[in-house]
């Protein structure tokens, strides 16, 4: 029982590293996808790759910040959403020629997973720096998801509606 409880815990460093890995995988996935999609929708994949890279950089800066360094070893309860989060690190196959709607649906699903992960992490940490960091990251994901939803509506729900 005690072991099980311990396995539910992780350090802040581990959690943030997992998050960074999630974004690194996504960046790599989108970068690989760029030449596979037709030029008319390439902007979409390039935008997504850029957003993930920005995410990686932001997390890297966060780990290096002096304030954060003191909290890297703090124990945090692993979120329930962690399994879905870990699964999503493995990018799925979108086929040889995915269209804009498939790319967007995939990106939206990833944003949802990340949003749930950060929201739970924020809820699991007491008020303080870590709580603020995860709340900030959750808000970032919410904003990015909103941007993607707006883009989805613009692209898919347009033309003759």
């Amino acid at each position, binding site marked *: 029982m005690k072991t099980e409880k311990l396995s539910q815990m992780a350090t802040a460093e581990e959690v943030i590293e997992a998050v960074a890995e999630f974004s690194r995988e996504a960046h790599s996935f989108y970068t690989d996808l760029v030449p596979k999609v037709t030029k*008319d929708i390439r*902007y979409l994949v390039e935008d997504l790759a850029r957003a993930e890279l920005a995410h990686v950089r932001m997390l890297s800066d966060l780990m290096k910040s002096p304030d954060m360094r003191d909290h890297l070893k703090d124990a945090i309860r692993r979120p329930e959403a962690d399994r879905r989060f870990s699964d999503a690190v493995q990018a799925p196959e979108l086929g040889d020629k995915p269209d804009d709607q498939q790319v967007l649906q995939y990106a939206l699903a990833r944003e949802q997973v990340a949003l749930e992960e950060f929201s739970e992490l924020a809820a699991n940490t007491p008020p303080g720096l870590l709580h603020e960091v995860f709340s900030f990251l959750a808000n970032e994901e919410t904003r990015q998801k909103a941007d993607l*939803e*707006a883009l989805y*509506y613009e*692209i898919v*729900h347009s*033309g003759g*509606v």
Partner: protein
Amino acid sequence: MGSLRDVLSPFTAWKHVIETPVTIRNPIGREAADGYRGFHQNDIEKCIGCGSCEVICQNAAIDMVPVSDPVDGDSGLRPKIDYGRCCWCALCVDVCMTGSLTMSNEYTWVDTDPDAFRFIPGVDPKPWDDLEKGYRREGGRVLTGAERVEMGELAPEARIDNFDEIVAGYTREQAMIEADRCVECGLCVATCPAHMDIPDYIAAIREGDYDLGLQILYETNPFSEVCGRVCTHKCETACAARHEGDPIAIRWLKRHIVDNVSEDRRLEIVGTPQTLPTRRKVAIVGAGPAGLTAAYDLARQGHAVTVYEAQDKPGGMMRFGIPEYRLPYAALDRDIAVIAAQGVKIETGVRIGHEITMDRLRAENDAVVLSIGLHIGRSTRIPGTEGGGVETAIDLLRRITAGEEVPVPKQVLVIGGGNVAMDIARSMARLQKVKHGAVGVTVTALEDFAHFLADREEIEESLEEGVEIIDARGPQEVVRFKSGNRKGEVKGLRSWAVTSIFDDKGRFAPQYDQGDERLHPAEMVVEAIGQAADVSILGEDLTEALDWNRGRLAVDVAGRTSEPWLWAAGDAVHGPDVITAVADGHRVAASVGAMLMAMGEVAR
């Protein structure tokens, strides 16, 4: 020699010295009567710069002058009044379309600068700007009618089992009354994408000169018969008359002109190209409104134009997307006949990218125009959408027009809240009425009624025809029977209530109430959520070579793509709208024409 009376009479005036004077010793500062017509006031926010005051002024005392940038429905002009000419008759107040112009009861003003007596009320501050006393028009406008002449329509019960045209068209008398309401301000012209000369063709109706009216229509729009029926009539949203009544029925008046000119006479009036052939060749891909408008213009410039159309008949979305009860095919054919009469060759049943490649078009022509429309229907791709019993509206509408057999179950569910959703819902309702004797169509849309994308008339007429419309529902799954005889067949659509669809910035951000789940029973689900262009006809190399702008072909203001031989126009570039496509067709034709002319000059 004067009389004694002549000598004494000047002295009689002295008696007035002791009388109470009847004139005003100091008129400055004396308040006029409450309703006196004094210096003008203008509510600058209400004024739309229509210029009706300038036109009616009998003394040419009013000039419309620019005070701000024009926007739709507001010219940015405001009346400047010259009080050296103003006779204070207040006709300008009486005719004012918005009620913005009034007159204060201030009538005295002393200034040594004569130019001070020419000013812009509401813009140049004056002491009487806020006075409440003065002359105001009582009630609404009376010089021009406020109510639109109602258009005759087939009753719902008379139209639900057929595809007969619903709208009857104005009689001569009705059109005259409606045309009489127009003050010819011209605000509509700027709003019309094709900048049709609306005031002049309405004036032609008043004169009863339909030949002139038709001539004016064709100066800017070779699809006037089509637009007289299905135009999105943005012009009417800018009409000055809408401020204190109904906007002028510009679309119906346009139709009235075409209705009153026979097809033969139309061909006579429009005529054929009056220029020698240039020996330049242009290929146009897609026989929709943009492509055929460009073809019309270029043919009249003397160029040899061939339009390639994948379907068996020309017209694009006008034929294969708009049901016949809104736009009879015969009306479309009459417009196309005039275009064909210019020498435009229309090759139907030719799919570019299959029978003919883009490379070949480029090699055999001096210019190529892409006007391929938005012919791919989008799918929600929610679970269950793959497999039988789920259709896209665009494909169904095309098959209905082509006379192909389409499934007509007793209960159909349409996903979408735009005009295409209403078109397919109403088409299916007609087919159901014929086949089953009853209508069973439900439309569900993400948007609530306040944010529906379909035109108000479309929604009202759909409801009249028995179509059920449920707003604010988010589709989650096309549910299929899991067992029994009907295993795998569509059972209905599972949806959640949408609590909000846009965030506080107006962006799409749907929020659902998962507790409010419903199953809408249906044997067939039709998706009408959006459309896309089939750009696969370009081929990989050309797709790669071209510049794109967030999913759409990148074009310059003239419609030219990054490839110097290729132009693009219409729905695929600027979104779906017939009149916008017509305007686009003119724009690319002008650009292509200029390039061909330059080629001719070089060749000489």
